[in-house]
Protein backbone atom coordinates (compact mmCIF):
# COMPACT_ATOMS: atom_id res chain seq x y z
CA UNK A 1 0.00 0.00 0.00
CA UNK A 2 1.85 3.08 -1.24
CA UNK A 3 1.11 6.79 -0.95
CA UNK A 4 -0.90 6.73 -4.18
CA UNK A 5 -3.15 3.99 -2.78
CA UNK A 6 -3.85 6.06 0.36
CA UNK A 7 -4.41 9.20 -1.74
CA UNK A 8 -6.99 7.24 -3.76
CA UNK A 9 -8.71 6.24 -0.50
CA UNK A 10 -8.94 9.91 0.57
CA UNK A 11 -10.47 10.86 -2.82
CA UNK A 12 -12.93 7.95 -2.56
CA UNK A 13 -13.92 9.16 0.92
CA UNK A 14 -14.55 12.68 -0.42
CA UNK A 15 -16.82 11.36 -3.21
CA UNK A 16 -18.80 8.94 -1.04
CA UNK A 17 -19.20 11.50 1.76
CA UNK A 18 -20.61 14.09 -0.65
CA UNK A 19 -23.23 11.64 -2.00
CA UNK A 20 -24.06 10.57 1.58
CA UNK A 21 -24.62 14.14 2.75
CA UNK A 22 -26.56 15.17 -0.35
CA UNK A 23 -29.06 12.30 -0.37
CA UNK A 24 -29.08 11.19 3.30
CA UNK A 25 -27.66 7.78 2.48
CA UNK A 26 -24.78 5.93 4.11
CA UNK A 27 -22.92 5.40 0.86
CA UNK A 28 -22.15 1.73 1.55
CA UNK A 29 -23.69 0.71 -1.78
CA UNK A 30 -20.98 2.81 -3.52
CA UNK A 31 -18.07 2.38 -1.14
CA UNK A 32 -18.14 -1.40 -0.63
CA UNK A 33 -17.88 -2.46 -4.30
CA UNK A 34 -15.37 0.32 -5.11
CA UNK A 35 -13.08 -0.67 -2.22
CA UNK A 36 -13.21 -4.28 -3.36
CA UNK A 37 -12.90 -3.60 -7.09
CA UNK A 38 -10.26 -0.84 -7.25
CA UNK A 39 -8.38 -1.14 -3.95
CA UNK A 40 -8.29 -4.92 -3.49
CA UNK A 41 -9.98 -4.84 -0.07
CA UNK A 42 -11.76 -8.15 0.68
CA UNK A 43 -15.56 -7.65 0.41
CA UNK A 44 -16.36 -8.60 4.02
CA UNK A 45 -13.71 -6.14 5.30
CA UNK A 46 -15.06 -3.47 2.89
CA UNK A 47 -18.57 -3.90 4.35
CA UNK A 48 -17.33 -3.70 7.98
CA UNK A 49 -15.01 -0.76 7.30
CA UNK A 50 -17.75 1.01 5.31
CA UNK A 51 -20.14 0.78 8.26
CA UNK A 52 -17.45 2.09 10.62
CA UNK A 53 -16.74 5.15 8.44
CA UNK A 54 -20.51 5.65 8.04
CA UNK A 55 -20.66 6.24 11.79
CA UNK A 56 -18.41 9.30 11.45
CA UNK A 57 -19.92 10.58 8.17
CA UNK A 58 -23.49 10.31 9.51
CA UNK A 59 -22.45 12.13 12.72
CA UNK A 60 -20.96 15.05 10.77
CA UNK A 61 -23.84 15.24 8.23
CA UNK A 62 -26.45 14.80 11.00
CA UNK A 63 -25.00 17.72 12.98
CA UNK A 64 -24.97 19.84 9.79
CA UNK A 65 -28.62 19.02 8.99
CA UNK A 66 -29.64 19.85 12.61
CA UNK A 67 -27.80 23.18 12.41
CA UNK A 68 -29.66 23.92 9.18
CA UNK A 69 -32.94 22.98 10.93
CA UNK A 70 -33.73 20.25 8.39
CA UNK A 71 -34.91 16.75 9.32
CA UNK A 72 -37.48 15.14 11.61
CA UNK A 73 -35.78 13.81 14.80
CA UNK A 74 -39.11 12.46 16.13
CA UNK A 75 -39.49 10.15 13.12
CA UNK A 76 -35.83 9.07 13.40
CA UNK A 77 -36.38 8.23 17.07
CA UNK A 78 -39.47 6.08 16.25
CA UNK A 79 -37.52 4.30 13.51
CA UNK A 80 -34.23 3.76 15.38
CA UNK A 81 -34.97 0.79 17.66
CA UNK A 82 -36.94 -1.31 15.10
CA UNK A 83 -34.23 -0.57 12.52
CA UNK A 84 -31.51 -1.83 14.88
CA UNK A 85 -33.56 -4.99 15.56
CA UNK A 86 -34.18 -5.45 11.82
CA UNK A 87 -30.43 -5.13 11.13
CA UNK A 88 -29.74 -8.06 13.46
CA UNK A 89 -32.51 -10.12 11.79
CA UNK A 90 -31.06 -9.26 8.36
CA UNK A 91 -27.63 -10.51 9.43
CA UNK A 92 -29.25 -13.79 10.57
CA UNK A 93 -30.96 -14.08 7.16
CA UNK A 94 -27.56 -13.74 5.44
CA UNK A 95 -26.26 -16.63 7.55
CA UNK A 96 -29.28 -18.78 6.52
CA UNK A 97 -28.88 -17.85 2.83
CA UNK A 98 -25.14 -18.58 2.96
CA UNK A 99 -25.84 -22.00 4.46
CA UNK A 100 -28.12 -22.86 1.50
CA UNK A 101 -25.48 -21.66 -1.00
CA UNK A 102 -27.90 -19.20 -2.63
CA UNK A 103 -26.63 -16.02 -0.99
CA UNK A 104 -24.93 -14.52 -4.07
CA UNK A 105 -28.00 -14.56 -6.37
CA UNK A 106 -30.56 -14.11 -3.58
CA UNK A 107 -28.88 -10.95 -2.28
CA UNK A 108 -28.56 -9.41 -5.74
CA UNK A 109 -32.25 -10.10 -6.51
CA UNK A 110 -33.25 -8.59 -3.13
CA UNK A 111 -31.16 -5.51 -3.93
CA UNK A 112 -32.83 -5.12 -7.35
CA UNK A 113 -36.31 -5.42 -5.76
CA UNK A 114 -35.32 -2.79 -3.20
CA UNK A 115 -34.15 -0.39 -5.92
CA UNK A 116 -37.42 -0.81 -7.88
CA UNK A 117 -39.46 -0.12 -4.72
CA UNK A 118 -37.34 2.95 -3.89
CA UNK A 119 -37.70 4.24 -7.48
CA UNK A 120 -41.51 3.85 -7.42
CA UNK A 121 -41.69 5.75 -4.10
CA UNK A 122 -39.62 8.60 -5.55
CA UNK A 123 -41.76 8.78 -8.70
CA UNK A 124 -44.97 8.90 -6.62
CA UNK A 125 -43.74 11.99 -4.74
CA UNK A 126 -44.00 13.98 -7.97
CA UNK A 127 -47.80 14.19 -7.56
CA UNK A 128 -47.92 14.72 -3.79
CA UNK A 129 -47.93 17.68 -1.42
CA UNK A 130 -46.15 17.87 1.95
CA UNK A 131 -47.80 15.78 4.67
CA UNK A 132 -49.65 13.45 2.28
CA UNK A 133 -48.71 9.89 1.39
CA UNK A 134 -49.68 6.31 2.14
CA UNK A 135 -48.16 6.40 5.66
CA UNK A 136 -50.37 9.36 6.61
CA UNK A 137 -53.55 7.52 5.48
CA UNK A 138 -52.95 4.34 7.51
CA UNK A 139 -55.17 4.37 10.63
CA UNK A 140 -53.10 1.81 12.59
CA UNK A 141 -52.82 3.28 16.15
CA UNK A 142 -51.09 5.12 17.73
CA UNK A 143 -50.98 8.07 15.35
CA UNK A 144 -48.38 10.74 16.05
CA UNK A 145 -47.82 14.25 14.74
CA UNK A 146 -44.43 14.95 13.18
CA UNK A 147 -44.00 18.73 13.65
CA UNK A 148 -41.12 19.33 11.23
CA UNK A 149 -42.80 17.32 8.45
CA UNK A 150 -46.28 18.77 9.25
CA UNK A 151 -47.79 15.27 9.00
CA UNK A 152 -49.75 12.88 11.23
CA UNK A 153 -48.65 9.29 10.68
CA UNK A 154 -49.22 5.85 12.17
CA UNK A 155 -46.28 5.36 14.56
CA UNK A 156 -46.63 1.56 14.43
CA UNK A 157 -46.57 1.55 10.60
CA UNK A 158 -43.49 3.79 10.73
CA UNK A 159 -41.87 1.39 13.21
CA UNK A 160 -42.59 -1.57 10.89
CA UNK A 161 -41.04 0.48 8.08
CA UNK A 162 -37.95 0.90 10.31
CA UNK A 163 -37.85 -2.85 10.89
CA UNK A 164 -37.93 -3.43 7.12
CA UNK A 165 -35.21 -0.83 6.46
CA UNK A 166 -33.04 -2.36 9.20
CA UNK A 167 -33.65 -5.90 7.90
CA UNK A 168 -32.60 -4.94 4.37
CA UNK A 169 -29.57 -3.01 5.62
CA UNK A 170 -28.44 -6.07 7.60
CA UNK A 171 -29.19 -8.32 4.63
CA UNK A 172 -27.41 -6.22 2.02
CA UNK A 173 -24.70 -4.59 4.15
CA UNK A 174 -25.89 -1.05 3.42
CA UNK A 175 -26.93 1.75 5.77
CA UNK A 176 -30.58 1.74 4.67
CA UNK A 177 -30.86 5.39 3.61
CA UNK A 178 -31.29 4.24 0.03
CA UNK A 179 -34.68 2.80 1.08
CA UNK A 180 -35.61 5.14 3.93
CA UNK A 181 -35.29 8.41 1.99
CA UNK A 182 -37.82 7.20 -0.67
CA UNK A 183 -40.20 5.90 2.07
CA UNK A 184 -40.16 9.30 3.78
CA UNK A 185 -40.64 11.10 0.45
CA UNK A 186 -43.37 8.82 -0.95
CA UNK A 187 -44.97 7.68 2.35
CA UNK A 188 -45.09 10.97 4.27
CA UNK A 189 -44.69 13.47 1.45
CA UNK A 190 -41.49 14.96 2.89
CA UNK A 191 -39.32 17.16 0.71
CA UNK A 192 -36.01 15.63 -0.37
CA UNK A 193 -33.80 17.68 1.99
CA UNK A 194 -36.16 16.99 4.93
CA UNK A 195 -36.10 13.24 4.15
CA UNK A 196 -32.30 13.24 3.80
CA UNK A 197 -31.90 15.04 7.16
CA UNK A 198 -34.15 12.44 8.86
CA UNK A 199 -32.57 9.48 7.12
CA UNK A 200 -29.04 10.48 8.13
CA UNK A 201 -30.11 10.55 11.81
CA UNK A 202 -31.43 7.00 11.55
CA UNK A 203 -28.23 5.86 9.83
CA UNK A 204 -26.38 6.60 13.07
CA UNK A 205 -28.22 3.81 14.87
CA UNK A 206 -27.91 1.24 12.07
CA UNK A 207 -24.21 2.11 11.57
CA UNK A 208 -23.60 1.73 15.31
CA UNK A 209 -25.21 -1.74 15.44
CA UNK A 210 -23.54 -2.75 12.16
CA UNK A 211 -20.08 -1.60 13.27
CA UNK A 212 -20.46 -3.41 16.59
CA UNK A 213 -21.43 -6.66 14.81
CA UNK A 214 -18.67 -6.38 12.18
CA UNK A 215 -15.90 -5.22 14.56
CA UNK A 216 -16.73 -8.12 16.92
CA UNK A 217 -16.14 -10.46 13.97
CA UNK A 218 -12.82 -8.72 13.16
CA UNK A 219 -14.03 -7.29 9.84
CA UNK A 220 -13.24 -3.59 10.46
CA UNK A 221 -9.96 -2.05 9.28
CA UNK A 222 -9.87 1.00 11.58
CA UNK A 223 -6.88 2.82 9.96
CA UNK A 224 -8.62 2.50 6.56
CA UNK A 225 -11.91 3.78 8.02
CA UNK A 226 -10.13 6.78 9.56
CA UNK A 227 -8.40 7.74 6.31
CA UNK A 228 -11.77 7.51 4.51
CA UNK A 229 -13.25 9.75 7.21
CA UNK A 230 -10.70 12.55 6.61
CA UNK A 231 -12.44 13.44 3.34
CA UNK A 232 -15.93 12.06 3.85
CA UNK A 233 -16.81 13.97 7.03
CA UNK A 234 -16.07 17.34 5.42
CA UNK A 235 -17.60 16.59 2.00
CA UNK A 236 -20.75 15.15 3.65
CA UNK A 237 -21.36 18.56 5.22
CA UNK A 238 -20.95 20.30 1.85
CA UNK A 239 -23.45 17.77 0.43
CA UNK A 240 -25.94 18.48 3.24
CA UNK A 241 -25.60 22.23 2.71
CA UNK A 242 -26.13 21.83 -1.04
CA UNK A 243 -29.21 19.62 -0.48
CA UNK A 244 -30.91 22.44 1.42
CA UNK A 245 -30.06 25.03 -1.27
CA UNK A 246 -30.94 22.92 -4.33
CA UNK A 247 -34.37 22.91 -5.96
CA UNK A 248 -36.19 19.89 -4.34
CA UNK A 249 -37.39 18.70 -7.74
CA UNK A 250 -33.84 18.69 -9.14
CA UNK A 251 -32.64 16.82 -6.06
CA UNK A 252 -35.42 14.23 -6.44
CA UNK A 253 -34.49 13.67 -10.08
CA UNK A 254 -30.79 13.37 -9.21
CA UNK A 255 -31.68 10.71 -6.62
CA UNK A 256 -33.77 8.85 -9.22
CA UNK A 257 -30.75 8.98 -11.55
CA UNK A 258 -28.57 7.54 -8.79
CA UNK A 259 -31.08 4.70 -8.21
CA UNK A 260 -31.16 3.93 -11.94
CA UNK A 261 -27.34 3.87 -12.11
CA UNK A 262 -27.11 1.42 -9.20
CA UNK A 263 -29.94 -0.71 -10.64
CA UNK A 264 -28.06 -1.09 -13.95
CA UNK A 265 -24.77 -1.83 -12.17
CA UNK A 266 -26.37 -4.58 -10.02
CA UNK A 267 -28.19 -6.00 -13.05
CA UNK A 268 -24.91 -6.12 -14.99
CA UNK A 269 -23.21 -7.80 -12.05
CA UNK A 270 -26.06 -10.37 -11.83
CA UNK A 271 -25.74 -11.29 -15.52
CA UNK A 272 -21.95 -11.52 -15.18
CA UNK A 273 -22.36 -13.79 -12.17
CA UNK A 274 -24.90 -16.00 -14.01
CA UNK A 275 -22.73 -16.37 -17.10
CA UNK A 276 -19.74 -17.66 -15.04
Amino acid at each position, binding site marked *: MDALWWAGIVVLGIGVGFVAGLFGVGGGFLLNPLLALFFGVPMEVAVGTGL*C*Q*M*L*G*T*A*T*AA*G*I*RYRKLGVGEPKAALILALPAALGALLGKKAVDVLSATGRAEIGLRLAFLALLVFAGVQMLRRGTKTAGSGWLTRLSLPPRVFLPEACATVSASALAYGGLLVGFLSGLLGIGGGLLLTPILVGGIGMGMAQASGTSILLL*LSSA*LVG*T*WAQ*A*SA*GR*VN*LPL*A*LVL*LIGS*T*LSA*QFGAQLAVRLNPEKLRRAFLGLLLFIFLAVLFDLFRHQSR
Partner: protein
Amino acid sequence: MPDAVYLILCLVVPPVWGVVASRLFDALSASRKTKPVDDEGMYHI
Protein backbone atom coordinates in the same frame (compact mmCIF):
# COMPACT_ATOMS: atom_id res chain seq x y z
CA MET B 1 -4.33 -4.78 20.82
CA PRO B 2 -7.04 -6.58 22.84
CA ASP B 3 -10.29 -7.21 20.90
CA ALA B 4 -12.43 -5.27 23.39
CA VAL B 5 -10.23 -2.15 23.09
CA TYR B 6 -10.30 -2.39 19.28
CA LEU B 7 -14.12 -2.72 19.37
CA ILE B 8 -14.46 0.35 21.60
CA LEU B 9 -12.10 2.35 19.35
CA CYS B 10 -14.17 1.37 16.27
CA LEU B 11 -17.36 2.59 17.99
CA VAL B 12 -15.99 5.77 19.58
CA VAL B 13 -13.36 7.27 17.26
CA PRO B 14 -15.54 7.76 14.07
CA PRO B 15 -18.36 9.74 15.79
CA VAL B 16 -15.83 11.80 17.77
CA TRP B 17 -14.05 12.63 14.52
CA GLY B 18 -17.49 13.49 13.02
CA VAL B 19 -18.02 16.07 15.79
CA VAL B 20 -14.49 17.47 15.30
CA ALA B 21 -15.08 17.70 11.52
CA SER B 22 -18.34 19.55 12.17
CA ARG B 23 -16.49 22.14 14.30
CA LEU B 24 -13.80 22.37 11.61
CA PHE B 25 -16.44 22.98 8.95
CA ASP B 26 -17.97 25.76 11.09
CA ALA B 27 -14.55 27.35 11.50
CA LEU B 28 -13.91 27.17 7.74
CA SER B 29 -17.34 28.67 6.97
CA ALA B 30 -16.79 31.47 9.51
CA SER B 31 -13.41 32.37 8.01
CA ARG B 32 -15.05 32.71 4.57
CA LYS B 33 -17.66 35.14 5.94
CA THR B 34 -15.39 37.66 7.61
CA LYS B 35 -16.77 40.62 5.61
CA PRO B 36 -19.83 42.21 7.25
CA VAL B 37 -23.11 41.40 5.48
CA ASP B 38 -26.36 43.39 5.77
CA ASP B 39 -29.96 42.02 5.92
CA GLU B 40 -30.15 41.69 2.14
CA GLY B 41 -26.97 39.63 1.94
CA MET B 42 -24.88 42.50 0.48
CA TYR B 43 -21.24 42.82 1.44
CA HIS B 44 -20.02 46.20 2.77
CA ILE B 45 -16.52 46.78 1.50
